[in-house]
């Protein structure tokens, strides 16, 4: 993904349950778009990386260098979406569960 921007942003990731060995009991979906966050949160942070106030302050403190060892804010998921999963439980009953925070909608520097 060389063409991806260097700055913190959402990147595409499709997860196939067969790849992680869960396809034996997960009926649906077979795969889903999970996405992930990657990129730098370097000073100065643009609005597009949706920095929290704390991240802005941390970024400034790091840039000024007055306190040693302060890292850049982290590029992490901000808004996330749930995912309904149809699967078989241990007794082979069909179960539907709606799991929260399963795919990334937006990323942010936090």
């Amino acid at each position, binding site marked *: 993904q060389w063409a991806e921007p260097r700055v913190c942003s959402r990147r595409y990731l499709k997860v196939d349950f067969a790849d992680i*060995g*869960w*396809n*034996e*009991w*997960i009926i*649906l*979906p077979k795969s889903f778009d999970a996405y992930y966050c990657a990129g730098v949160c370097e000073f100065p942070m643009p609005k597009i990386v949706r920095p929290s106030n704390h991240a802005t302050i941390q970024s400034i403190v790091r840039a000024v260098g007055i306190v*040693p*060892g302060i890292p850049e804010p982290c590029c992490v998921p901000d808004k996330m*979406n*749930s*995912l*309904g*999963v*149809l*699967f078989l*439980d*241990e*007794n082979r*009953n*069909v*179960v*539907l*569960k*709606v*799991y*929260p925070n*399963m795919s990334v909608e937006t990323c942010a520097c936090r």
Partner: protein
Amino acid sequence: AHTSPFGPSRGSCHLATTQSSHAITGATRQADMVAAHMLRLYEKYSRRGARPGGGNTVRSFRARLEMVDQKAVYFFNLTSMQDSEMILSATFHFYSEPRWPRAREVPCKQWAKNVSCRLLPAGLPTHQQLLFRSLSQNTATQGLLRGADGELLLSAQLDSGEKAPGVPSPSPHAPYILIYADDLAISEPNSVAVTLQRYDPFQAGDPEPGAAPNSSADPRVRRATQATGPLQANELPGLDERPAHAPHAQHYHKHELWPGPFRTLKPRPGRKDRRKKGQDVFMASSRVLDFDEKTMQKARRK
């Protein structure tokens, strides 16, 4: 409607009886009704933000038919329900063969062209009663039994009032129960692995029955040390080694944050650094072991 068989701690439970048989088409009759129903629910609730029955979980339970006192009793094994799942409602689904004579068509008369021809049933359908039986008289546990292996069983009996109803033949239309619940633990960290990961990727020895067949059958050596409390709590190990006399317990000083195991992971000092051995000895005796002395001097000058 039926009173809650799960007791007040599980939340209110409205058990509705539904005759779904008449909506079944010939094609779906052959299919597994439970799976088909759950598939419909999946399609309905996989849309963003949709919540099945106001919760986040729907569990299906198939019936196991047994003859008790020459009566057909359906048993549902509810053992897989989790303590964290608060039951919101439940539905009972069964298939009932129509017992009345075939509907007859009212002949359309020539003079009544505008009147639509209707199908009129010749009689009323058989009245069905759903009975939940328990050994105890406790209404809170009505219909609930403990199996021989400690299973949580719900017994149900369909009574049509006939004197000799006979033994129902096994069919793909056996009754089933859907339980709508709110899993309070689903927002906990790692909840997806708790319910969906059927094997411990770090576990040595044979996998559990039902584990993924594509997982390696080779015995795996567990290299990790014994997991400690702080590791499981997502905290840095060794934090509890902070001196008890710290002036502010919530204020972590840098030299207090990295004790114990992390010291052994420090890279070997370079030649230049080794010349400062005497200084290191001094630092080892002080409480500012891992602090950068140069930075500290700079800070003092400032």
